[in-house]
């Protein structure tokens, strides 16, 4: 193989690794929408909070990573519950436009509050992991770990939703909320649990991202919009659709970024998305 091809292959494989991570991110968003019927526009900003949590716990307070990360996941899970309880719940009965606006407001708020609290400079976790070489290609260990953890997260969620009572209840409530009390289940509690789960998934995503990228207040913009597009393309609320769409998008970004500058990779992915909107507007799968 000549040099050109192998680096293209490297880009494709990196795309796979990225796809795994994006899949995890889209999962949380789809879960919340599929169950509660609300889009957390501020989802990426919750991830940003998680990244800051890991950063400060590890760099400032010298917690080892294996303690800082679970703590961060817990923190974002709690943030998710707070978001649902105090921001989403009051507008659940209102028109959908209000729900969109309110989470948009939280996005605004979290970005600004992070700037206020942490400043605009980029913060690096200070963890440098070696590169893994396969032949002429090299992959960052952080990426590989992220992929592995993301895969574990996806599988874990799948097992939880299908093999546990609570998970089955979460799936059930999106199919018929009104009769949940007849099963002995309080819908409000399921929603709270789902919010915590969505937050936890965001927290996990945060842990994986902070290994690879510096955190700053606007970092949500780097993957937020792309996560939204992935969810829409896969069919908003469909977790399976999100998984597939994530890998497709990741390829566009990775390979597009290989041929042009990285920003163009995103633009190409967006153009692909628009094209798909004309072909299959409701997304790959229904909820």
């Amino acid at each position: 193989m000549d040099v050109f091809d192998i680096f293209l292959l490297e880009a494709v494989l990196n795309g796979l690794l990225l796809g795994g991570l994006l899949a995890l991110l889209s999962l949380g968003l789809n879960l919340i929408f599929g169950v509660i019927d609300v889009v957390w526009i501020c989802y990426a900003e919750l991830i940003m909070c998680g990244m800051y949590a890991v950063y400060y716990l590890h760099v400032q307070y010298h917690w080892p990573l294996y303690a800082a990360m679970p703590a961060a996941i817990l923190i974002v899970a709690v943030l998710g519950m707070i978001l649902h309880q105090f921001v989403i719940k009051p507008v659940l009965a209102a028109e959908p436009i209000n729900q969109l606006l309110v989470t948009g407001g939280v996005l605004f708020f979290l970005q600004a509050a992070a700037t206020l609290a942490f400043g605009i400079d980029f913060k690096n976790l200070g963890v440098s992991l070696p590169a893994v070489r396969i032949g002429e290609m090299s992959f960052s260990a952080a990426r590989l770990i992220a992929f592995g953890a993301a895969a574990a997260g996806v599988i874990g969620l799948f097992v939880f939703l299908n093999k546990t009572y609570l998970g089955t209840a979460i799936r059930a409530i999106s199919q018929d909320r009104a009769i949940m009390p007849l099963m002995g289940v309080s819908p409000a509690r399921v929603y709270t649990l789902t919010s915590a789960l969505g937050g936890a998934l965001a927290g996990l995503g945060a842990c994986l991202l902070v290994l690879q990228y510096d955190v700053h207040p606007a970092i949500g913009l780097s993957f937020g919009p792309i996560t939204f597009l992935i969810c829409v393309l896969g069919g908003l609320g469909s977790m399976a659709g999100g998984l597939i769409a994530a890998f497709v998008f990741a390829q566009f970004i990775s390979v597009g970024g290989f041929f042009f500058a990285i920003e163009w990779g995103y633009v190409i992915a967006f153009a692909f998305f628009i094209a798909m909107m004309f072909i299959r507007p409701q997304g790959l799968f229904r909820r």
Partner: protein
Amino acid sequence: MLSLEGVSAAYGGFQALFGVSLEVRAGESVAVIGPNGAGKTTLLRLISKLIDPTGGKIQFDDQLLNRVPPHAVVSRGIAHVPENRRLFPRLTIEENLRMGAFTSRKTFDAKRDLVFGLFPRLKERRGQLAGTLSGGEQQMCAIGRALMSGPKLLLLDEPSAGLAPVVVQSIFELVRKICSEGYTVLIVEQNIRQVLKVVERAYLLEAGKIVLSGRAQELLNSKDIQKAYLGL
């Protein structure tokens, strides 16, 4: 076991029930019959607390239900099979049963075997999505789901509604069997002739008020009922 005293209920500004009183003793099978819109479904939803009464007392096992939240009713021993079955369409039969057993997980295996014993067809299709079942199978699954919590009182809301006549027959056979197994059953039905053959006592509900009550056989023989509802 169950007693309603002077219970009223309303939807928005619309009064559905006016001072209804009835009782169901342990081991009995009781029917509430009446025309469409009489308030029969409202009655059951009151008992399972899906809606709150605007007046009167609901007592179960000597405990006041008025303030009990809806999701706490099952664990007290009341299982409600709602109108139109209301299975979770994209869950399998077995998963629907699991939801029924949410508050009584320890006995899941035993109860599931019991339900499969009662409804062998469900056992055959246990992995099938509930939304793909026929009307009769859905009804069996819905009743089975309610039985999973090991209830003391079973509420059945129009189990024969929307089913083909042949299936209706088998459903009432089933109800008869459940009653004979010793379950306490309160069943609400429009199919007066069939249901009165299966229960011990019945109440006639018209426009939100109880107008007649007595042993099922008496009501069947009553001239008023025969003229108004049985077309005789």
